[in-house]
């Protein structure tokens, strides 16, 4: 039975509390949250024996109470939770992004390899039921070679804690493309490789520090593959919208909220309601981590996947800054990853 420690500070515990009873071969034994009362309450709810108010205390005082750490806290970047957890010999499920910069991600990967621990990057969109169907059909060959991936993700600003909100304010990061990390990962995953060229555009905001708004990313893959991704944080309120189309040489898959709307009539024009897909994606992701640790294998989303997302988003930021396309291979030439 794998013993899990959850380090988080953004209400993520409630979600894990819902899925914990369904988890196989693992259980939560430790909780850390910057709010002590939250940590204590969650520990009681989830059945964890110990709790702490921060990562350091958890690692110092309760090191023997857990085997693996789920790193969700915003302070993971500043306090280098990833590298330190690996040095402590703990398996890691680190919420994406694993780091703010390429060299920091490379450091986590190197330390993890040296410590021979399992490093998985949390990217639950890969485990969403609709996306799994798309991926399974792609992998089976039914769709042929992927040619075009189109993704729209729009959210209400009040419902979307973009990365700009959770990043520590003392880090020099003002990359409006960070929220595209999940979609960038999906694109690389579905094409089976990183892009060779990136072109980014964004809606210019009047306030330079305001990263809310709209970004659009155009990726080109070798063999002619292409992806168009746009992300908006500008819907007025409530539900967001997600649409993914994968066009292959033999077939296509369309996972589109537009196809999954119900109608509500209360007078006036009907309202479209989205039937949600539940928490199964988070359970599937966590179970994959547990299985990977148990079987001593690479997890579905490894450190190199996390590094690749950061490389692409950095290339995209450079494209946005210079107003030109950027070759990813040039960007990756500066790769600081040292193989173990």
């Amino acid at each position, binding site marked *: 039975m794998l013993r899990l420690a959850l380090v988080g500070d953004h209400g993520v515990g409630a979600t894990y509390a819902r899925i914990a009873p369904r988890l196989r071969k693992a259980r939560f034994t430790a909780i850390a949250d910057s709010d002590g009362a939250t940590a204590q309450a969650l520990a009681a709810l989830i059945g964890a024996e110990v709790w702490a108010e921060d990562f350091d205390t958890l690692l110092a005082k309760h090191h023997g109470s857990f085997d693996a750490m789920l790193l969700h806290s915003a302070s993971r970047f500043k306090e280098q939770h990833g590298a330190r957890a690996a040095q402590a010999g703990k398996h890691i499920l680190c919420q994406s992004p694993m780091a703010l910069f390429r060299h920091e991600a490379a450091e986590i990967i190197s330390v993890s390899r040296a410590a021979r621990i399992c490093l998985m990057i949390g990217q639950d969109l890969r485990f969403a039921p609709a996306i799994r169907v798309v991926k399974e059909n792609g992998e089976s060959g039914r769709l042929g*070679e992927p*040619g*075009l991936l*189109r993704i*729209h993700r*729009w959210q209400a600003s009040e419902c979307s804690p973009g990365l700009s909100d959770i990043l520590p304010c003392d880090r020099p990061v003002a990359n409006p493309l960070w929220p595209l990390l999940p979609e960038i990962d999906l694109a690389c995953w579905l094409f089976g490789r990183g892009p060779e*060229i990136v*072109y980014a*555009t*964004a*809606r*210019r905001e009047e306030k330079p520090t305001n990263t809310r708004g*709209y970004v*659009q990313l*155009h990726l*080109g893959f070798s*063999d*002619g*593959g*292409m*992806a*168009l991704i*746009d992300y*908006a944080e*500008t*819907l*007025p309120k409530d539900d967001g*919208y997600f*649409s993914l*189309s994968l*066009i*292959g*040489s*033999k*077939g*296509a898959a*369309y996972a589109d909220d*537009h196809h999954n709307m119900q109608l509500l009539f209360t007078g006036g024009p009907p309202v479209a309601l989205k039937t949600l897909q539940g928490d199964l994606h988070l359970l599937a992701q966590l179970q994959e981590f547990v299985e990977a640790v148990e079987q001593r294998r690479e997890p579905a989303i490894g450190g190199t996947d996390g590094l690749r997302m950061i490389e692409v988003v950095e290339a995209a930021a450079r494209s946005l800054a210079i*107003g*030109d*396309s950027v*070759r990813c291979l040039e960007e990756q030439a500066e790769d600081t990853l040292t193989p173990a």
Partner: protein
Amino acid sequence: MKRFRCAVLSVIKHDYIARGVTAHPRFEVTVVADDASQPDWVHERNQKFADEFRIPYVRDVERALAEYGVEVAVVSSEAERHCDLSVRAANAGLHIVQDKPMSNRLSECDRVVEAVERNRVKFLMWNRNFLPAVVHAQQVIASGAIGQPWAIHVDFYFSKDAGPPKGSRKPGDPPINWLQYQIAAHADGSDGALGREPIGELQNEGIYPLAYIRCLTGANVRRVFARTTAHFHQVNVDNGVDDLATVTLEMEHGLLGSLCVGRIGAASHPDIGEIKIHVLGTAGALVISEARPEVAVYYRGQPEKEFRHRRVAIDNDYLLMENFAHAIDTDSETILDARAGRAICAITEAALKSSRLGKPVNLSAR
């Protein structure tokens, strides 16, 4: 109300435009005409249409325009002859309805713009802007429901095959000849951009989604970044033209947008294709399926290629011609005039250049 006598100047690609013109009671096709120097297959197709409509086929364009009292030309030839026929019609004082693409050369589009404006005639590029869902989108945007649009995306996936799939040519086999393929494919309706020079789907079909964007935003495109590839069909591979394309659009007033165009194969959608419009505005957003309204019909023994969802309430042909008639009556512009058609041709030309260079390409402000 005045009725307009129409000359059909070549009807060899598809005949849907010539038929579409007749959807309006003020327009009647009077004569089919083409140049005598055209090959036999051209004359055969022209003659067939003329016979069906019981009108003469004249192998002399200028004579037909002079002798049949026509006021409107309907041009549906090979792509590279579109503009030349339109210029000749404009110089004869005729208003023009023209098939897409406007041309495979921007310089040809410039000739049309000049001739149309010099002769003070009306020009309509055939388009789909009066489909019910597009009209609906326009109404919603005009109502202010989503505020000021600042991003627009159109997917235009056209689920038809185009001959053998990519990778099917055996070693030693010759590449597929574009024109011969298009002529042969006419029999089952799978022909695409008919012409002596190969044309990809971005140039061929791009006018429809780009016309939507123009209609819904009114904005000109200033910069493009594009990727194109031949992903599906051997005929496209052999002739070096795309059947799949994506374009990032940077427009006036800070508008952003994008375009996905592909002839993605019949297996990739149960109907004509996934065609959608996404618009983001300052106060909301809009997602439109171009196919709606539609009716689902399923039955035992249904042919594999029969569409399961059938579009209904389509009145695009009539409304286009109503728009054209109104432009003639009131000396106003059509919904997609020569300058708009030229602008769209410039966008696709810039997109193809961008794809070759791997760089964004600016468009001039003309």
